[in-house]
């Protein structure tokens, strides 16, 4: 840890981020501007999440980092290594063993507890940005809770395609007041945010915004009475562990149309396999 302050950021920056985090928790779903710093990795690689994690993390914490549910992809490995080096904290791949979980675009399948904090990496914190390019205008819309534009967008989807055509980054209302981007998690994960026992923090580095959802807060995915929200998932069991209730990745296995559906959450899949659950492709693999 020579040459760095604990967890890389200087104390002045941490104080500024900590103040923003407290305000974010007090106003669930509201985007709080903060002085995002340049980090030793490019924007789009989780600079917002890293700054939030760095401001929250202590020596007692156990950190887990996932990228699309996986612990072993480039982004997850490098961020985990970054904090192991700059903060000297213990790291883990087990969801249940972690106290702080930084995530890119997934929520773990294992239910989170009230002593855990989940930090989301957010590329675009403004849920209205595709509908209204002006920040001045969207800020006013949030101030007035004027979200008609988003309802019109959902209505137009239904009129055009017969259904709401958003499969990830599906907009949610937090505590009945703020329209919020859940970050590009699949809509499959949206119901997990509702009344989650863990504290949820969101950091957008390039866009310089922090927001939060306190524990046990109502998070409702936008929908209509006659077109209720439906989370989307592939209609298959996991090929390796046989799970039918987890979010699946589709893997192309050959050039003859071969497909393998596997859990996106690698820790969940590994734990199930360790417990003896075997999927159809898992058996084949073991028999070879």
């Amino acid at each position, binding site marked *: 840890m020579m040459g760095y302050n604990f967890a890389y950021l200087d104390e002045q920056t941490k104080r500024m981020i900590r103040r923003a985090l407290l305000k974010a928790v007090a106003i669930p779903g509201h985007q709080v*501007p903060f002085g995002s710093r340049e980090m030793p990795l490019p924007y789009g690689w989780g600079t917002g999440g890293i700054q939030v994690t760095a401001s929250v993390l202590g020596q007692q914490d156990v950190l887990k980092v996932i990228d699309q549910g996986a612990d072993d992809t480039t982004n997850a490995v490098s961020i985990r290594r970054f904090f192991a080096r700059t903060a000297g904290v213990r790291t883990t791949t087990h969801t249940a063993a972690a106290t702080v979980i930084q995530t890119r675009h997934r929520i773990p399948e294992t239910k989170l507890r009230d002593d855990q904090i989940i930090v989301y990496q957010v590329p675009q914190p403004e849920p209205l940005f595709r509908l209204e390019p002006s920040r001045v205008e969207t800020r006013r819309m949030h101030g007035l809770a004027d979200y008609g534009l988003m309802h019109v967008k959902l209505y137009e989807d239904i009129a055009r395609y017969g259904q709401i055509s958003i499969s990830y980054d599906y907009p949610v209302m937090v505590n009945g007041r703020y329209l919020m981007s859940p970050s590009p998690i699949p809509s499959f994960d949206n119901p997990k945010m509702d009344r989650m026992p863990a*504290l949820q923090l969101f950091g957008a580095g390039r866009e310089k915004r922090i927001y939060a959802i*306190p*524990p046990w807060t109502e998070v409702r995915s936008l929908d209509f009475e006659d077109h209720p929200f439906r989370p989307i998932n592939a209609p298959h069991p996991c090929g390796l562990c046989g799970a039918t209730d987890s979010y699946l990745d589709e893997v192309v296995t050959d050039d003859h149309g071969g497909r393998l559906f596997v859990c996106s959450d690698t820790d969940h899949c590994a734990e199930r396999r360790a417990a003896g659950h075997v999927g159809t492709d898992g058996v084949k693999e073991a028999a070879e």
Partner: protein
Amino acid sequence: MSGDLSPGFADPVTEAQACFRAVLDAMARPGRLHTLGGVTPPPPLGVASAAVLLTLVDHETPLWLDDGLRAAQPWLAFHCGAAVVADPRAAAYAVATDLGELGRFHPGTHEMPETAATLILQVAGFGSGRRLRLSGPGLRAPASFAVAGLPDDFIAQWHANRTQFPCGVDLILCAGDQLAALPRSVTIEEG
């Protein structure tokens, strides 16, 4: 006078982090108690309020102190480097021994509610005194919370604060080395 100042955190990095996590948890779960330590502030500034100030306040945050806390001003000036302001409405952080009018602090604006003040209020103690019933974000079910040393009109004042949501002042209650928080999102009734 400068020779009489007691020290701040012995290990600022880890102690500020531990204190922040306590405040974050308190803010995320209204009414939950946390215990802080590590500082010996000049009375009447309490241990918990001093730790919170060392953790969150610096030259970027105008600080307001009520008359009862003037004695702590040199200590805060030295350890936090905060500019102490005379106008409560100009303060980002305020420390008080007596609630007075909650409405004198800046509640933020509808477009920028995060600019609202955070009030650190020193109370007599927790677990006895006025019983409050808390509900809202951070609470699985309505919770009971007892605080000694709140003024009689606290619930009426809080109601006025709560109804201007998303604007409103956030409250951190401190008694000795104990702390609990009441963010503006929480609804408080007579319990």
